[in-house]
Structure formats: C-alpha cells, structure tokens
C-alpha cells in the first residue's frame, strides 16, 4: 500500500511446477512470475522442457496422452486447475507454434474461426476482425486480394503470420510463442518481432526461443531452463551482463554450449 513505485501486476505465477510424461520427469522445480504486459523470454537448449511449460499454461496436458504436472500455475491469481471449462481458459490464450500451421480453410476462415467459435456471426463484425488481425500480423497487404484461398498453401513465413493473426483473433490476454522463427526467413522474423513489440501494450507475451539474441532483443525478463530443470530467472539484460546466480546461464547465453 505504501510502496513508492507500484509493483507491476502478476499475470502468471508458477510455484514448484514439475511436468511428467508417462511418469518420466520432463521439467521440474519451476518457480517464477510473469508480469502483465511484459515480454517474458524462456531460453534453453532443445529438450530443456520449454514447450512442456507452455502446454501447462493453457492446460494442453489434458489433451496429451500421459502428460501430467504437479505444483501450482495460476493466471490472474486463479489456479489453472480450477477451471471447469478448459476450452474457455484456452480461448483466452493465443499460441504460435515452431512450425507454422495454416489450417486447411480459407485465409479468411482461419482468422474468423475463433470469433465464430465464440459465437460471433455477423459478417461485418467478422470482416472487421479478420482485417484488423491480418493487419496487426503484417500479413494483410500480401493476402487481401485472395482471402478465399487456402491458408495451408501460403508460404512458411506467411503461414506463421497467419498463425499469429489467428491467435490475435482470440483477443488473448496471454500470447505464447514457441520458437516461432525456426521455419521463417529472417525478414519475416524481423516483421514478427516488430509486431510483438507493439502487442506488448495489450497483452502479456511469453516467448520461448532457441535464439539467445532474440530474447535479448525482445524480452523484458528471461528464464533459463536446462535439461528439464529451471535454472534461474531475471531481467534479460542481467543474464547477459549483470550478476547471475548460476554460472551455466552465462555460459549458455555466451554460446559456450547448447
């Protein structure tokens, strides 16, 4: 109450999270907080449990055979396990995958899918949403003349932006990006990074990345996972230049392994 600077609001809080697949541990000991309107980076070599972490945030464990987790994950202070309608929880969280997924529907329907599932039927409302989301994802100019062609036949870079437009059409509070630049050319990557910087004012972004420099460019704070264990979390810049609690973090960000 008497803090000089108001603490930023916590969006996601994770306590003692551990994830298993068929009883085998995939990630453990995660304790961190993600603040509202920040870009939160997660770095670490392949197989360190980053994707599994994202899948817990929107409770995709429930759709994944053998996946279980312990500990608490709360979004806006509410335990994700407490949700009776998981689909409603997921609809508030946008996800972008490593490999772009343009659904085999028209470009228009790709973006209109989520609003339609939410019950929006009016053509003018849908038109407006589709255009707004495609513009925000920096794709509108390239596809505005062929909105009825298949989204799944776009180029990789375009499909990735379509995926982002689709995630934005959910009007998410939380946007999860999982190594989005893996299958995308550098120019598109830069375009998407610019989009993300703009989106920060509207939502909280969790950016899992295999590129340490990408985290450095975008993330306010960053967590480091290593082979199934949470190592540490801190201001992104601190991981590169400031004090680190674990020497492996510095070794990793400086490219000495991974």
């Amino acid at each position, binding site marked *: 109450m008497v803090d000089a600077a108001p603490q930023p609001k916590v969006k996601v809080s994770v306590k003692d999270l551990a994830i298993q697949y068929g009883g085998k541990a995939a990630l453990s000991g995660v304790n961190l907080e993600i603040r509202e309107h920040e870009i939160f980076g997660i770095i670490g070599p392949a197989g360190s449990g980053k994707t599994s972490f994202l899948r817990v945030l*929107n409770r995709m464990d429930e*759709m994944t055979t053998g996946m279980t987790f312990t500990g608490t994950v709360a979004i806006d202070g509410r335990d994700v396990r407490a949700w009776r309608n998981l689909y409603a929880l997921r609809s508030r969280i946008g996800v972008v995958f490593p490999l772009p*997924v343009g659904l085999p529907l028209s470009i228009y329907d790709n973006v209109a899918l*989520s609003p339609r599932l939410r019950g929006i039927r009016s053509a003018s409302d849908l038109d407006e949403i589709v255009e707004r989301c495609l513009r925000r994802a920096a794709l509108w100019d390239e596809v505005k003349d062929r909105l009825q062609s298949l989204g799944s036949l776009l180029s990789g870079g375009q499909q990735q932006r379509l995926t982002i437009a689709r995630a934005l059409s959910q009007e998410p509070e939380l946007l999860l990006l999982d190594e989005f630049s893996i299958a995308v050319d550098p120019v598109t990557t830069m375009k998407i990074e610019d989009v993300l910087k703009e989106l920060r004012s509207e939502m909280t972004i969790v950016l899992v990345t295999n590129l340490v420099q990408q985290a450095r460019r975008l993330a306010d704070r960053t967590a480091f996972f290593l082979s199934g264990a949470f190592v540490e979390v801190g201001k992104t810049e601190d991981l590169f230049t400031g004090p680190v609690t674990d020497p492996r973090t510095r070794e990793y960000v400086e490219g000495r392994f991974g």
Partner: protein
Amino acid sequence: MFEARPINRQNQTIERIWRGVFLAMTLVLVIPVLVILGVLVVRGGPMISWAFLTTEPTNGMTEGGVLPALLGTIALVLVALIASVPVGVAAAVYLSEYAADNWLTRTINLAIINLAGVPSIVHALFGLGAFVLFFQFGTSILAASLTLAVMALPVVIVSTRESLQAVPMAFREACWNMGATRWQTIRTVVLPNSISGILTGVILEVSRTAGETAPIMFTGAAFFLPFLPQSVYDQTMALSLHLFVISTQVPGVPDGLPYGVALVLVGIVLLMNSVSIAFRTWLRGRKKW
C-alpha cells in the same frame, strides 16, 4: 575400372529372371479376372437391354427381366447404408479422435478385425437369430439389411478411420490451442477434410454389400416374388440370390440368362469400385496442405 565384373553380369541375369517370374505370378492372378469379365460381357452382353432391366422375370424365371431383383438389391443396400454409415463413422471418429490407448480401444479394434473375419454364413445365422426371430422383424428387407449392415460395419469403420487419420495432428493441436472443443475441431477441420475419403469408403461398402448373398438368404431375400415390396417389412428379390437361384435351382433356364444377370451384378459392383478408385486417385492428386 567401372567395367561390370562377370559376377555382376550374372547377378543381373538372375535379377531379370526373378523379375520375370514375379511378373508372371502377378499375371496369373490378374489375367483370369480379365478373361472372366470378357466372357461375362461376350455371353451376357446380348441379354442386356432396357427391357431386361425394367421387366419382371416370367415363365418360372426362365424368361423376362430382372427388375424386382435389381430394385430389391438397391433397397437392401440403401437400408444397410442408412443403418451402418452413422454407426461406422461414429466408431471411426471415436477411435481416431477420442480413444486413448487403453483396453477398451484394443478390445474395439479386436472386435472390428473379427467382425470382418466372421464368415458371411455365420452373419446369416446371426441375422436370422437376432433380427428375424428375436427382434421379430420377420424375413424382411429390414432384417436382411441390418444383417448386411453389421457385415459392412468394419469396412466403413476402417476406411473412415484411415481418412480421419490422414488429417495431420498439427491441425487438431492448433484448434485445441485456440480453445476449440474436440467436437468443434472435428466439425470444422477434421471432417471437412476427410469427407471425400469417407465417401470413397461408403461407395466401396455399396459395392461389397450389393454382391452379398449368404447373409440375405434366410433373412429377407426371396427366390421369387410376383410383386414388388411395399415396405421394409416385406421380403424382396435380390440380384445376387437371383443369380444363385436361376443357375442352380431352376430347370430349363436358357444359357444366356444367368450370364446376363451376372453381368448386371458385376456391372453394378465394378462400377461402384471404379468410382471409388477414381475418387481416391482424384483425392490423392488434390493438394490441400
């Protein structure tokens, strides 16, 4: 330096011989089909006319056409489709979209394999015991079609499941991550992209069902009926049984007549098969992702 050594040349000769042997074996299987089809067309062809397809058999089934049998086969197949397609598609959706790898799924898969392997005459016994007697449908189109439907179920399930599973998992994941329920995902992305494959399977089912004889012999098909069935509780004639009857049970049938009936039956079956094959080829050529 790269000249073929003698051993290699010898190998190549052996290779060519084996290739020829395997080709010959393949031809032994496929040539009879062509011969059979040829004979059916040559001997049955002259029988086929508009009148043959649109008149009733007369004079103790030694003359006349096949109309009641043709309509009967169509009715039997249609009712069987109506009964088996919804159940079969539901089962396939369950197996492909909902089922976890547990004992229930394994049991269902085992049941499907066995359902496909049960002899057709045992299906006939089941149809008689269950539909004709126990459920008291009598010997009727309904009882015969339900028997055919149970027989055809594995065909529908297996082909539908294959087309559902041809839709990449990533599409489902993308929908689930947007908050779509499993059913919304199936309805918006999975089914629309597998419906053609499912149809292919259904056409194949039509082809198989139209030719079946044993399952309908005691459940609803009649040797001869002077009238057309009025409801699903009536008996009916059927092409397959008609062919059996006039080629084994009726004296004095002219030589060409059974060939004509066989040609009509094989024509329907192969037409359906060709449609199914053409449909499948077209599907394979169409790129949607």
